[in-house]
């Protein structure tokens, strides 16, 4: 037995993305954002996309390109504080935004990846965050139903991968990547290094390759990956 080889060229991987798809994108700020796959999705041109991402990056970086190109019409997120363009698009009705508490967004994505229907949570009970949500009573307490999130495609950035798609992340570039890598029908990972099978220690794998459909090696990193000077 030998584990299958999932290495793939970036254009071939993103070619599967269709108009109207829901696309999860890893990253929290710059670290872990799959900058190269995002550019490939801009080049590919799929429209009317729903994006799921912690934040909207900063102007001129990451998913801001998909907002600027008009490809994304809906965004499920936690915070847009660093991208005034995204806030302007939201305020002028060009981008529909659904805000989630950050840990609840993480849990909803994880629930999607774990094949469970929803979680019951007390976060936001008694505030406008709970408005319009289904409430369930359990053992005398009220909980909001936070439905699982799944996507058609997840775009993931990893530090290291192997040819089966096992992934390892570095530092705070991990963030939403391992969660999203479980929660999409088609999971595409860009990795700074793709190692031969067996060179990622089995105990150190963060995302088992069984969740990953396509893995692609990055060449030299673009300027979007580097330290931001504000």
């Amino acid at each position, binding site marked *: 037995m030998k584990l299958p080889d999932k290495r793939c060229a970036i254009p071939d991987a993103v070619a599967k993305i269709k108009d109207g798809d829901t696309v999860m994108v890893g990253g929290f700020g710059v670290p872990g954002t799959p900058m190269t796959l995002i550019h490939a999705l801009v080049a590919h041109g799929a429209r009317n996309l729903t994006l799921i991402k912690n934040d909207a990056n900063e102007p001129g970086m990451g998913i801001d390109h998909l907002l600027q190109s008009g490809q994304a019409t809906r965004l499920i997120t936690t915070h847009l504080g660093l991208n005034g363009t995204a806030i302007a698009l939201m305020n002028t009705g060009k981008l529909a935004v659904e805000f989630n508490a950050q840990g609840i967004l993480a849990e909803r994505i994880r629930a999607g990846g774990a094949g469970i229907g929803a979680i019951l949570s007390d976060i936001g009970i008694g505030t406008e965050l709970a408005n319009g949500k289904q409430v369930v009573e359990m053992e005398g307490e009220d909980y909001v139903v936070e439905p699982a999130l799944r996507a058609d495609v997840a775009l993931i950035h990893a530090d290291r991968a192997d040819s089966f798609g*096992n992934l390892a992340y570095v530092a705070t570039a991990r963030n939403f990547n391992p969660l999203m890598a479980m929660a999409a029908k088609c999971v595409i990972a860009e990795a700074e290094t793709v190692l031969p*099978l*067996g060179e990622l220690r089995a105990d150190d794998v963060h995302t088992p*390759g*069984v969740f990953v459909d396509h893995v692609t090696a990055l060449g030299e990193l673009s300027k979007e990956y580097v330290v931001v000077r504000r």
Partner: protein
Amino acid sequence: MLSDVRERMVARAAREITSGMVVNLGIGLPTKVVNHLPADFPVCLHTENGLTGIGPTLSPEKADRNLIDAGGAYVSTVPGSAFFDSATSFAIVRSGRLDLTMLGAFEVSAAGDLANWKIPGKFSPGVGGGIELAQKARRVVVLTTHTDRAGNPKLRQTSSLPLTARACVSRIFTDMAVIDVSADGFVLVETADGISTADVVAATDAPLIVPDTCLPIF
């Protein structure tokens, strides 16, 4: 060692695994299927206790005390194996990442209902991971003897035992036949060498659809 016919049944079941699949092999007969896969066959074997990329079973002398499969057998890894916790392991199962699971059975009904975890009053050690495998793998096949030790058919019109999952089984490999579960009930697909269609019909407690063609023999 397995008897000759069981060995052929297991070998036949192994052909159910196609290139690139992610597969979970249940405790008992299904585990033996791995012996019939070529060394370089592209497949990923999963075990519920937290491993993708199961390698060959090891003797106690060569075993790693920390490396077992869900049945407690000492196994090994292959290049590219990954370890993970029990929540992640069943995330793989429930989110549909298993292309195939092969399970044992006490009974299978003509609707594909599977009973394999409890015989009330006799055997109730708990359901373990079976229910999630049966309910969520994309394809569920069963490996079992055609009848129990007392000679009672395991393939029945309806099962009287507590179910593991409803309408989950697609195909059954026995020591007598390969049988599909269709919308119209059991369909005979292949027979074991030396077994007649009449033998299979007699050992099955439900109508058996027998195609009007020459069936393959395994």
